């Protein structure tokens, strides 16, 4: 058969062409027809469990379209009465078993089950509800699991396995007693979870949600004796707008500055400032290791899920991890230090709140290393989703807010910093600076295209003063593990490894507005960041005037004693504790 032959099938009588779509559902949707789904996630393996995507195929009966390979000449009916009956029955059965406290549910506004129940006009449930509610598991520092809302679609199970290779969650028990749970009935706080939040990001209901700290922030703001400042991570600015009717990738940093002042923050700063500092520290560290025979490859250290992964799964590789703290942590330690020791604030009255795309950051700020005198550097981390809740809950519609400038000097940043929010961005930012420092001249092409795109694994080789430097960039820990295996078996031929645990990097973070049915949003967010990068006056971290001043006035130089004290950290072998937990 020739490849040029046009393959078509029929959807409700309409002839539809298909090529390499992975399943019939994709073909049908591409043709503009709507098919409901609950367990289908375009980025994950088809599971075929929820039976909502069933269609009627002439001669084949009812089939789940998400698992069916497209075949020429199929005659498909997407909304026949037989199909609707199955879907309605499924919805009714799921609703019966679902804790329907919808009015108070954190996913009330974007629950897929609720949306479909409405669409299919389910007005009564003939079957009785659960007899007894199962206990809610809030043992995890970032996530809450409510089995009473779980519809067992297995999206979280697949995400944990296919993105992170961790398989923390799995199915247990049989029949109607089936549950999604960590092995051996452990709680989510007792296992090697890296808190990436991808399970929550793919959950169609509120069975796994992000632990909300919004009220804590409101209380900080309400305390008149406290000064409350905030930092906004790069990828937050290109995603938060989605929840206010703006397009993914629309940069709303100015609107956020204005809105957060309205909410009551004393200063609105930017994590990007600290990202530039990170490049100075990590770049210096990399050059030092490269020239002085240090441990290579160097692993980036921005991603807290990745750090926890290394600490729990491969502590033997900890010397590879850059000691530079993450931008978020650097912001916390440096800015609080300046506020207390230069500007005279009382440490317990100067509060820093971080707005992050990340659920794992909620745990990073609780690490005892990131505190002085028992007072944490960052007082609270809110995810993009919580940021949206904070703004909406303050009666503000971001869409209609007039943009304002960020506060200076910690609101000044370069394009190198803003691309930290996407996989490849840290490497690109580092190379812009490292290359210039090593070779003494500016990098030829500031846009390092090989680092871009949302592929799971990218690589590039640069020549720096005759020395070849190979950089590998991965996102998802499953992909990272492959590289770690190379390091372990001695076949690693690269000098730097950038890892972001979430698919696509922070643009796909577990705390971002939910986009699992529309993965292209991640590309649009990434595009928003690259657009900002190319539009900025400064595009290399070492050119940031505020950063220069920061070193001159407070930290001397990258890698200085003080920098090591406040901008670097050490890691802990957590293999033992995990082993104990899982025993």
């Amino acid at each position: 058969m020739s490849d040029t032959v046009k393959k078509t099938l029929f959807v409700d009588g309409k002839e539809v062409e298909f090529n390499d779509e992975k399943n019939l559902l994709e073909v049908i949707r591409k043709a503009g027809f709507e098919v409901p789904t609950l367990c289908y996630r375009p980025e994950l393996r088809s599971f075929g469990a929820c039976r909502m995507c069933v269609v009627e195929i002439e001669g084949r009966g009812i089939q789940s379209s998400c698992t069916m390979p497209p075949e020429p000449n199929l005659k498909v009916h997407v909304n026949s009465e037989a199909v609707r009956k199955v879907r309605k029955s499924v919805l009714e059965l799921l609703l019966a078993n679902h804790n329907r406290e919808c009015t108070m549910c954190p996913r009330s506004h974007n629950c897929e089950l609720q949306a479909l129940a409405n669409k299919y006009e389910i007005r009564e449930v003939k079957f009785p509800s659960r007899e007894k509610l199962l206990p809610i598991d809030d043992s995890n520092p970032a996530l809450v699991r409510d089995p009473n809302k779980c519809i067992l679609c297995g999206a979280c199970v697949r995400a944990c396995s296919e993105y992170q290779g961790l398989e923390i969650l799995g199915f247990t028990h049989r029949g109607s007693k089936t549950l999604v749970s960590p092995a051996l009935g452990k709680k989510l706080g007792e296992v090697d979870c890296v808190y990436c939040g991808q399970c929550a990001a793919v959950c169609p209901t509120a069975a796994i949600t992000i632990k909300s700290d919004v009220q804590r922030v409101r209380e900080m703001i309400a305390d008149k004796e406290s000064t409350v400042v905030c930092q906004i991570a790069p990828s937050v600015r290109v995603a938060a707008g989605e929840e206010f009717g703006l397009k993914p990738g629309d940069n709303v940093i100015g609107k956020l500055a204005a809105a957060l002042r309205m909410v009551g923050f004393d200063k609105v700063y930017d994590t990007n400032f600290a990202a530039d500092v990170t490049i100075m520290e990590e770049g210096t560290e990399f050059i030092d290791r490269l020239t002085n025979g240090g441990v290579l490859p160097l692993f980036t250290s921005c991603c807290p899920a990745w750090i926890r992964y290394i600490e729990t799964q491969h502590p033997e590789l900890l010397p590879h991890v850059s000691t530079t703290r993450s931008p978020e942590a650097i912001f916390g330690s440096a800015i609080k230090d300046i506020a207390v020791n230069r500007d005279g604030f009382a440490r317990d009255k100067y509060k820093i709140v971080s707005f992050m795309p990340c659920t794992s950051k909620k745990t990073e700020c609780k690490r005892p290393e990131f505190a002085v005198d028992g007072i944490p550097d960052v007082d609270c981390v809110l995810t993009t989703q919580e940021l949206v809740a904070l703004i909406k809950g303050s009666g503000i519609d971001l869409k209609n807010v007039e943009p304002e400038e960020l506060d200076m000097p910690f609101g000044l940043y370069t394009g190198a910093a803003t691309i930290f929010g996407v996989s490849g961005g840290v490497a690109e930012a580092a190379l812009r600076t490292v290359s210039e420092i090593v070779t003494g001249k500016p990098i030829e092409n500031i846009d390092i295209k090989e680092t871009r795109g949302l592929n799971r694994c990218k690589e590039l080789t640069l020549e720096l003063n005759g020395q070849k430097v190979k950089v590998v960039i991965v996102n998802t820990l499953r992909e990272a593990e492959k590289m770690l295996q190379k390091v372990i078996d001695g076949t690693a031929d690269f000098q730097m490894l950038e890892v972001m645990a979430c698919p696509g990097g922070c643009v796909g973070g577990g705390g971002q507005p939910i986009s699992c049915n529309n993965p292209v949003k991640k590309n649009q967010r990434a595009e928003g960041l690259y657009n900002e990068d190319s539009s900025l006056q400064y595009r290399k971290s070492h050119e940031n005037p505020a950063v220069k001043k920061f070193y001159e006035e407070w930290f001397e130089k990258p890698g200085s004693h003080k920098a090591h004290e406040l901008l670097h950290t050490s890691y802990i072998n957590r293999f033992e504790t995990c082993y104990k937990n899982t025993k």
Partner: protein
Amino acid sequence: MQSNELTIKAKQIEAAENVKKQGTRVLVCAGTGCVANGSLEVIKRLREAGVDVQTIQSQKMTVVPTGCHGFCEQGALMIIPDLHITYVRVKKEDVDEIIESIKTGVPVERLLYTDPKTHEKIKKNDDIAFYAKQHRTSLSNCGHINPEDINDAIAIRAYEALENCIRNMTQDEVIKIVLDSGLRGRGGAGFPTGRKWMFTKMAQSEKKYVVCNGDEGDPGAFMDRSVMEGDPHRLLEGMAIAGYAVGADEAYIYVRAEYPMAIKRLRIAIKQAEEHNLLGKNILGTGFNFTVHIKEGAGAFVCGEETALLASIEGERGMPRSKPPFPANKGLFGQPTLINNVETLANVPLILLNGSEWFSSMGTEKSKGTKTFALTGEVNNTGLIEVPMGTTLREVIFDIGGGIRNGKKFKAAQIGGPSGGCLTEEHLDLPLDYESLSKAGAMVGSGGLVVMNEDTCIVEVARFFMNFTQNESCGKCVPCREGTKNMLRILTNITRGKATMEDLDTLKELAENVKTGALCGLGKTAPNPVLSTLKYFYDEYVAHIKDKKCPAGVCTALKKIVIEKDLCKGCTKCARNCPVGAISGTVKQPHEIDQTKCIKCGVCLKNCPFKAIKEV
């Protein structure tokens, strides 16, 4: 003994000599049923008496433990082929007498089978009604050979068909014979076996697998177990032929761990076949490789579903996935895989040996060959049977099964296990084949056949099977997981008199939605018992709901025990015996039962000296 011969003919001569040396063979069933009835004790006693080592009056005798003879009802069973004698219900105490009888040639009368109708003693196996109507082909060796000795099998032509295939036939020729025979899958769905082979052969891949589904999970079914325990070489040969035909060099037998005897005997058989170069590398010097592994299942019913079975072999949780893609294209470890059940594969060597016409001469137009059934329930002769496809239910129950126990009336037969349906009196003359059964709302299934008499509550039967599937559902797809739960709940409510007629409508609607919506065969067939009993015994459901009565008197919640005031003398015996203190009254005055406390145990009923207590 190991044979270095490279042809089956030579091996056969050698094996026949080995068998001949055994002299008079005393076959004792060592199938699970007879073992439960003490057959191992019988074997032990025979050996203690020196049967194996001595010649008795120049006559050499050998004890041969065999697989299941089928007539489990009458175990332990013993056959002495040389003397054409079958003994039933043999106990170890009978051994000395049996040895004596072999010497004298006079049978032990009391150990012969008594025909329940004529009360005649029957000596020969084939004359027993249970066997007379049967046509044992796939089971032909079961009970007649020692499954742990490959010589027994080779002597009666085991592996002859395999040799012929790999030496003299092309893959397509083998497939054509299977196709022409009309053999269909014996595991339940009845898909034409030859076509399955063809699809797997056509799939392009370096690596292919053959998987034998031995995960027999229907309650009361033991057909596949009997083949694996009684004639493992038949199965292995069938698998090797299939492997040759589809181009696979590696195979798995998936057996549940609850079948330890089957696993043990398969392991022995694989080892012996490898020693004889009939499995493994370069079989009989032909260059054909075929390695067989055993995978023990952990006993999940759903693992009988082929995609769940594959997942289980791969080490994953036994959860089915949607088809297509079918295993023939994408199966075990992502490679094209042929999956057949035990009985299907056990038919293969015979078809290749005797020709497709031989096989297709048995059975009906679309259902060829024979089918084994595990006959259980309220029938006189329970056991393992094999009949040509198209034999009627009446022949199975009344001729082979010897009719309903204790002269009761036949009510229904559940065929095809929890996935099957109920057949009633009107179906007694229905030919048992794929099409007829499917039309009647039942299915051949793997061959479980449970016979029920008039004392059976049909709603309770439906509830029993629903409880089974609900517990065994893998929990993956919504219709099966949640649907069976709610069907079970409604059925339970009906048996407790707590359901309404609306519930009955909901039950029916739900059953149909689960049937169309579920992901795999388990879910799609789970509503069958409900739908078929609703169809044939609707009134019985209504009686439970409207009249709050169980016509068969089974559902305890619907029973009511009352004291007739006129007959009660006030002796207080009932009140004293009642375990829950539900009866009250003063001496010499009529007593009363508090219905809210009564647990319907019936103690008062049995003990009332004046027959004043009645069940209504």
